[in-house]
């Protein structure tokens, strides 16, 4: 039984009058790959962004290896939110890959991957570049190290973004719809890299619309809808044999195309 890496308890998030997260709780074991699936607006991305506190939950807690993320205890009880500066060390433990990659256009690929290690990781320039080269090799982009992001395809940029996150040597990797903004023919190269990371035994949470990929690569799947967790379980179970009507309806909308290309 793998130790628990992440404990999410009772996350709630409200934007004005809109409740986006209505009490999300789940655990992640070390080495486990978890996939969050669900329709748009279900709160999957918001939930992910609450894990490294890019969004501040209104209620609830996030514990990484027992340590409380993003909140500091107050003297008179209760917690206050950390500032971005206070959060920096904790965020370093969590690697995040965004839908729109957000590579830094004024730096070349190598510098994009190395910058975090130099400025926030305490590595020397030499060490950082060595690590960067290693990570770029892992995502099969060593030959593009000197290029600038605008010269790369979307799939290549996303792989660089993955390398950048891996260079943090994080305990947890988060993927926020990593292939949703890519042209169809570029999706495969990114999914392959993610698959390799999962097979390595990394702890990962993957928000994705690629249901077939989730079924094949994830250990567990959580289906979210309307801010709630509707159904969760082993990936193959939830996707092949959904228990609840809502889950079946959602998967039914994507099942037909799936069967066609399965």
């Amino acid at each position, binding site marked *: 039984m793998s130790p628990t890496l992440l404990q999410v308890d009772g996350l709630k998030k409200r934007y004005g009058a809109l409740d986006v997260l209505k009490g999300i709780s789940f655990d992640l074991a070390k080495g486990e790959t978890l996939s969050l699936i669900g329709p748009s607006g279900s709160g999957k991305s918001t939930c992910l962004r609450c894990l*490294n506190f*890019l969004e501040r939950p209104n209620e609830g807690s996030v514990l990484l290896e027992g340590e409380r993320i993003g909140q500091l205890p107050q003297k008179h009880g209760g917690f206050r939110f950390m500032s*971005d*500066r206070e*959060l*920096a*060390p904790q*965020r*370093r433990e*969590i*690697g*995040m890959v*965004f839908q*729109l990659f*957000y*590579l*830094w*256009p*004024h730096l070349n690929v190598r510098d994009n991957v190395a*910058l*975090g290690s130099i*400025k*926030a*990781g305490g590595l020397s320039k030499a060490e950082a570049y060595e690590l960067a080269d290693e990570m770029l090799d892992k995502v099969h982009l060593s030959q593009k190290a000197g290029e*600038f992001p*605008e*010269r790369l395809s979307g799939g290549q940029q996303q792989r660089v*973004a993955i390398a*950048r*996150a891996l260079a*943090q040597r994080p305990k947890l990797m988060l993927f926020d719809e990593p292939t949703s903004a890519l042209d169809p023919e570029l999706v495969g190269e990114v999914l392959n890299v993610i698959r390799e990371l999962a097979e390595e035994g990394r702890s990962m949470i993957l928000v994705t619309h690629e249901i077939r990929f989730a079924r094949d690569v994830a250990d567990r799947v959580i289906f979210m809808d309307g801010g709630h967790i509707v159904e969760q379980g082993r990936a193959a179970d939830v996707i092949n044999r959904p228990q609840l009507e809502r889950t079946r309806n959602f998967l039914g909308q994507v099942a037909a195309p799936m069967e066609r290309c399965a």
Partner: protein
Amino acid sequence: MTPRLDVFGGILATLMAGAVTAAEVAAGAFAMALAAGLLLAVLSTFARSRALQLAIAAYTEWMRNVPALAHLFVIYFGLAAIGLRLSPKLAAILGLGLVGAAVLCDVFAAALRSLHVGQRESALSVGMTPWQTLRHVLLPQMLRLAWPSLGNYTSQLLKDTSIASAIAAPEIMFFARNLVTSTFETTLVYVAAMLLYALMVLPISWGFARLEHRMEHSR
């Protein structure tokens, strides 16, 4: 023809001293405008205090809707009346610097705000502090965006130093007017003056354009 050329040469030589002053005033005002403008832009974009944002907006609106000449008069004549006597050069640097800070604040803030919020988020999620994010990710991109406007501002600043002649700063127009009254060579004097301005402004514009080209094509 030669005596006219001699006279023209003599006029140019006299005006040169003015060109030096103009360059000094421009350099001083530029440094001030750059530093203050950058600070105000960052504060205005990232400070959470609404009062601070409003104060900065009030400052930039005041400086930009009132003529520079008025600002110079306030600083040179106005402050002198309450005991703070500044030299014309210093008053000019201060006046043009304060106006420039307002102009550049608007330029830099607009550039900063146009950056995608994802640039900041990806930097924070890599573990960088807000200050590191600003210094290594946001400001470099902002500067590239703002570069053409910065070039325009600098050229304009060099020309605006001529206003300092109104508070008796020893720059080009000041010397020019004196020369006109003493030599009556009105046409030659003004041609010489305009030539000197051109000689100062054109290299600056060209330099900025050159660097802009380099930035685009270093990728």
